[in-house]
């Protein structure tokens, strides 16, 4: 693990020291955590921000006229500014807090889908979507009579533009909902090109940024995204907090998703009116402590800086692709030109489950299964894969450890 702890301009030793969990031993071995794409570990700054609110500042937000509530409201609403800046949104009113990326997409499917799409309109997703960006559209289809179309991907794991064009040919598509980075193949999709394509065809675009936002600077205005979603917990923040970005005019036109406190204008038994966005979409007591934790996570990442993070993860990914491809009987899935720190593979000799269990006993955490992307498994001709994914704290040495571990698994199975 001492190998190449230091990549250029990136003080990995000090970054690792920021994550208390990395000092854990698993079955007496050093923890090699290669499952950040499922959920990332939390730096001390995030843990402390959450602890601080609870110890010194906590109260419910928005409606309290006293000191603690005002301070907590300021901190909560301050994170909205932070997220707006993080995504380079045009205004803070375009940032809606949700539980996770899944809820963000469901919110859009429900509010935009039922109110602004009409039966007969079509929605396009790609073959490499996470269930979170597929199932809500199926539910909308079944409830509301829209059509759901699937754009193919190439064998390399990139958008198949011919197939996409065919999906749009009849002019009925009103929404393209597509991942910005695949959680299985690591492929980045060309977000601004896809947005321009959708817009030329009179459709809106939703980008699932759950993976993408972790590895690179995202600029929703430069992309010209209509909707952009992500989860806090993959971005080194707490669970229970997610983000929906949507353009202001779209949010203004959308009815609420859930009803309750904080999202209303006025309420009478006969009839209620809605608050303006973003509050219209945040019913009830929000995830106050978690939102503040997300703010700390964004500060942490911004302090390292995306140029350094992207460069580091590029080195890791290149190294992983090279070293894993040298293992006989290992099949790497996907070969996109543009990819982030996620690598999926299968072994001829051993099933993904067996790989994960045997690596675990060496202290190495990888994910095995369908990765909430069952239809993609079918497309790839596999029933499951093993997946290693990288974060700011991942070292080249850990990737070497993975390769050594995989060879040991092969030995057992040969």
């Amino acid at each position: 693990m001492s190998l190449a702890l230091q990549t250029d301009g990136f003080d990995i030793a000090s970054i690792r020291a920021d994550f208390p969990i990395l000092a854990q031993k698993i079955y007496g071995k050093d923890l090699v955590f290669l499952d950040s794409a499922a959920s990332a570990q939390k730096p001390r700054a995030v843990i402390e921000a959450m602890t601080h609110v609870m110890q010194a500042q906590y109260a419910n937000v928005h409606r309290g006229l006293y000191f603690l509530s005002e301070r907590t409201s300021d901190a909560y609403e301050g994170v909205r500014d932070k997220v707006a800046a993080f995504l380079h949104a045009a205004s803070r009113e375009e940032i809606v807090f949700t539980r996770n990326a899944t809820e963000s997409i469901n919110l859009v499917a429900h509010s935009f889908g039922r109110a602004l799409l009409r039966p007969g309109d079509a929605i396009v997703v790609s073959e490499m979507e996470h269930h979170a960006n597929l199932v809500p559209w199926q539910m909308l289809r079944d409830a509301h009579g829209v059509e759901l179309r699937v754009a193919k991907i190439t064998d390399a794991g990139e958008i198949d533009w011919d197939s996409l064009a065919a999906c749009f040919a009849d002019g009925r598509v009103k929404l393209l909902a597509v991942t910005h980075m695949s959680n299985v193949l690591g492929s980045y999709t060309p977000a601004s090109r896809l947005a321009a394509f959708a817009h030329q065809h009179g459709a809106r675009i939703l980008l699932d940024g759950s993976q993408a936002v972790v590895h690179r600077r995202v600029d929703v205005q430069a992309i010209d995204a209509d909707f952009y979603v992500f989860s806090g917990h993959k971005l080194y923040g707490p669970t229970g907090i997610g983000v929906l970005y949507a353009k202001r005019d779209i949010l203004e036109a959308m009815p609420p998703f859930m009803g309750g406190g904080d999202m209303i204008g006025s309420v009478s038994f006969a009839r209620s009116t809605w608050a303006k966005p973003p509050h219209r979409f945040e019913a009830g007591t929000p995830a106050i402590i978690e939102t503040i934790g997300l703010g700390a996570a964004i500060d942490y990442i911004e302090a390292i800086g995306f140029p350094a993070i992207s460069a580091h993860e590029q080195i890791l990914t290149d190294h992983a692709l090279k070293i894993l491809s040298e293992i006989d009987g290992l099949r790497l899935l996907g070969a996109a030109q543009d990819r982030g720190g996620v690598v999926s593979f299968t072994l001829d000799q051993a099933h993904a489950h067996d790989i994960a269990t045997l690596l675990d006993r060496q202290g190495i955490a990888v994910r095995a299964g369908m990765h909430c992307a069952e239809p993609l498994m079918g497309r790839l001709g596999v029933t499951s894969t093993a997946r290693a994914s990288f974060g700011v704290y991942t070292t080249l040495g850990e990737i070497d450890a993975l390769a050594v571990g995989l060879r040991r698994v092969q030995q057992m199975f040969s």
Partner: protein
Amino acid sequence: MSDSAELYQALIMARSRQPRFAGPLATFDSQGTGDNPMCGDRVQVYLRRADTGVGHVSRGCAIMSASADLMAEAVAGKSAAEIAVLSTAFEAMVTSGAQDPALGDLNALAGVSGYRSRIRCATLPWSALADALADDGEG
């Protein structure tokens, strides 16, 4: 890796690599399926009632396919009531890790108790068999 040896012991490796009861039976009365949607594992079980002959088609990990094969061997010739008893004992054994003399070779799977998320792999074939037993051949 040495402690993994307990789980992936010789009998399991052998039975997953060279199963004795793999493949659909030439003639069978009913069929059952076990699916684990979380990981994509699937096992199909074919049952011939006359002599309780079982064949399985397993698509999944070593634990699951070895378990299917050992199950086919263990239930051969047994009555439905006997199988129910065996199945309950098997589930208790893989959950607790305590070997049970009544289970014979099936005890090879006792090690799975230390791997919480893998217990389901070992029990999946048994669900498929229950499914086949419940199938009255008309479905």
